[in-house]
């Protein structure tokens, strides 16, 4: 039993809360976010892109902290990472959260792309957004690659050496990625610039274009047997504000996961890099290129991803039917599945085989 005084107090608190919410809604224009979206857009499959964005927010914040202590020069890079891990307050933790979030984000961005491919969400009128998405995927992988180099341990230095070899293969196009681009600024320093300025800026531009087109075209229709691709803007029983709420929820879960992984396995750091050697393997997202490098040499490093990117770019051009159902796109999905299987198998082979075998095959080639 509650007293009448308590009721008044609760009522006053609720009223005050409502009035604060109303003020915020009005001043920040939050009602503009309550536009309709389909209910199915709130399922995790349709939130993968948003979860990736939440991961990027974590990467941005932790990256700012790490940049205060990192020295992007070949002579000092590894030393500064060691100091960051051992002397900087929560430096090891922040670096590990940054590392694990990057791993998770790579998974979510790849799953997002695969979902769009499987569900035919690249079809008219969303072709341009498919290309922007490919740009975002390439930018994400560029961020991961440059990030893996920066620690300048043996694995990072070998990644830098592969970067130089790949730059040489693509000639003038690889100019920025080669040591000869600038006489006074080491390649490592420029890759750091790329990691903290050029690529994030590019990511932001592409993201805003991506989000704008999602808003313009709406969430792609569910791929039922006869559904056809069309704009769904303004349709749906749910609200975008609800969508953002769930997205934020998954963002917090992602942060929790990164924190737990940080406690269990701190971000790895190898011994200082020694130039001219190859004794490590790259991170899992680049490992699948190992067998291709053995077969075709350094040329495979830029060429194979470029061919893969071209195949993905061809998808909306080749598959122009309006039908979204996977059962009506069996040939394309079969080819995509075959390519995906080849990549996974290639990665598994590279993961199992010792580095020495890679070196022997690369030299013998």
């Amino acid at each position, binding site marked *: 039993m509650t007293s009448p005084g308590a009721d008044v107090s609760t009522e006053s608190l609720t009223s005050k809360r409502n009035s604060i919410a109303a003020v915020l809604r009005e001043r920040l224009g939050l009602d503009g976010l309550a536009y309709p979206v389909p209910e199915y857009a709130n399922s995790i499959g349709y939130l993968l892109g948003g979860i990736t964005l939440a991961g990027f927010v974590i990467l941005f914040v932790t990256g700012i902290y790490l940049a205060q202590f990192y020295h992007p*020069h*070949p*002579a000092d890079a*590894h*030393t500064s990472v*060691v100091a960051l*891990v*051992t002397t900087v307050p*929560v430096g*090891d*933790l922040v670096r590990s959260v940054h590392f694990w979030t990057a791993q998770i984000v790579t998974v979510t961005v790849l799953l997002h792309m695969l979902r769009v491919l499987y569900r035919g969400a690249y079809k008219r009128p969303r072709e341009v957004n498919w290309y922007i998405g490919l740009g975002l995927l390439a930018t994400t992988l560029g961020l991961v690659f440059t990030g893996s180099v920066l620690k300048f*341990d*043996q*694995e990072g*230095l070998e990644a*830098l*050496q592969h970067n*130089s*070899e790949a730059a*040489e293969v693509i000639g003038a196009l690889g100019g920025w990625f*080669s*040591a*000869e681009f*600038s*006489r*006074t*600024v*080491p*390649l*490592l320093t420029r890759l750091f610039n790329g990691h903290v300025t050029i690529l994030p800026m590019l990511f932001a531009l592409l993201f805003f274009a991506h989000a704008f087109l999602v808003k313009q075209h709406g969430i792609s229709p569910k791929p039922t047997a006869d559904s056809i691709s069309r704009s769904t803007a303004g349709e749906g029983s749910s609200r975008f504000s609800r969508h953002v*709420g*769930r997205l*934020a*929820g*998954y*963002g*917090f*879960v*992602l*942060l*929790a996961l990164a*924190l*737990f992984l*940080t*406690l269990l396995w*701190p971000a*790895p*750091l*190898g*011994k*200082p*890099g*020694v*130039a*001219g*050697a*190859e*004794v*490590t393997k790259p991170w899992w997202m680049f490992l699948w290129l190992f067998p291709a490098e053995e077969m075709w040499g350094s040329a495979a490093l830029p060429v194979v991803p470029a061919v893969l990117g071209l195949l993905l770019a061809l998808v909306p051009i080749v598959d122009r039917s309006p039908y979204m159902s996977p059962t009506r796109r069996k040939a394309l999905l079969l080819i995509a599945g075959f390519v995906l299987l080849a990549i996974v198998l290639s990665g598994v082979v590279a993961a199992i085989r010792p*580095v020495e075998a890679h070196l022997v095959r690369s030299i013998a080639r």
Partner: protein
Amino acid sequence: MRHRTLLTSVVAASVLALYPVGVALAHGEPIIRVDPAIASAGGSITITGTEMEPGEVFDLVLEGAATSVSLGRATAEGEGEEGGFVVTLTLPGDLAPGSYRLRASTEEGESAVADLTVTAAAIEADPGPAMVQEASREPHVLDRSKPAGQVAGVAALAAASAVLGVWLIRRR
């Protein structure tokens, strides 16, 4: 008619003016390549020169932002007009890490450049307890233990983040 004469004169003058250059570059522009393109101070590099005239002597100089270091000379060998050289040399152990341009030039003014990134000598680059001189895939041995309070704080933050996340996901 006057135009034709003028055009012929210009073409003839151009050919005559460019003739010495043509003779001098009959073997093409000299090219050098450094392998590996990233080397540690004190490490060895191999310089390969091509498109050179046999007998030409090239001074090899490593040009940095602040210093230039002479690495010696190389003489192009070969037959006819196609010559080149392959030299393997050791970089100075005290070379400052950074970006360098390796220049091979003759007294006649021919030159070729290639870029080289120099990292610290392995033994100097390692500030930690595990001093190494050879490339290693082993993790760097560091004291990464954390105070119990910090671990508990991170675990609490992770748990709070997970609870908040699940609440936001399930909220209607």
